[in-house]
């Protein structure tokens, strides 16, 4: 099977851009915490934070945590794709990685939804409940489905591993 070079390149670029953004965000948050919100104005959910209240700080930290998880997910995915280059398929490492990626995607999606909900309550001081239909690939439900798909894919890989082992031990 041909190695997925294009996929690896896209993930490499994606990973380094995300990592740079994450490091920048951590640096700016640290600066704002030290020198106050007047130093560099932070925008959160379309609102400029004029005063760094404990609530705003917690929301920013939660956003950074979710960002960190996203960087880690891409890192695992990148390592998994590199592992495919070795030519060995259905290994325990690949199964565990696929499962972990799926779980991380679900945690990130749910976490982001929760942060958005909490941020709207505390930062905009309003409660919003409703059903939104997002007709794009950034839809909450679509990303959740992708996470579940990765977990299911890990189960398929596990079944394939058992079948491969049985095939190798057939005399």
């Amino acid at each position, binding site marked *: 099977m041909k190695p997925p070079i294009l996929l690896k390149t896209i993930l490499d670029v994606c990973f380094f851009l995300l990592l740079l953004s994450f490091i920048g965000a951590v640096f700016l948050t640290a600066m704002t915490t030290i020198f106050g919100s007047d130093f560099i104005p932070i925008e959160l959910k379309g609102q400029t934070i004029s005063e760094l209240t404990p609530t705003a700080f917690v929301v920013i930290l939660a956003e950074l945590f979710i960002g960190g998880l996203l960087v880690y997910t891409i890192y695992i995915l990148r390592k998994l794709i590199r592992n495919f280059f070795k030519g060995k398929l259905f290994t325990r490492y690949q199964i565990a990685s696929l499962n972990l990626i799926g779980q991380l995607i679900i945690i990130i999606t749910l976490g982001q939804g929760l942060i958005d909900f909490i941020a709207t309550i505390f930062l905009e001081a309003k409660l919003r409940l409703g059903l939104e239909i997002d007709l794009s690939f950034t839809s909450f439900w679509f990303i959740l489905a992708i996470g579940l798909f990765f977990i299911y894919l890990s189960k398929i890989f596990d079944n394939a591993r058992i079948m491969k*082992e*049985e095939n190798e*031990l*057939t*005399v």
Partner: protein
Amino acid sequence: MPIFVNLDIMLEKRQMKSTELAEKIGITTANLSILKTGKAKAVRFSTLESICRELACQPGDILKFREEE
């Protein structure tokens, strides 16, 4: 697995070496060793046929079922 392979006993009865049998039936000694040590998950009918032909025995002489404790 409760299926036991009695290939060692049959080879001893026929005074044949593993390497000799492997060569005659056309499988590697490594695969024959997997079969002898009971690590094999499955045996092809063609392999069983070749073993039975070379050792002049029945499949039941090679494979035994024993209840696991």
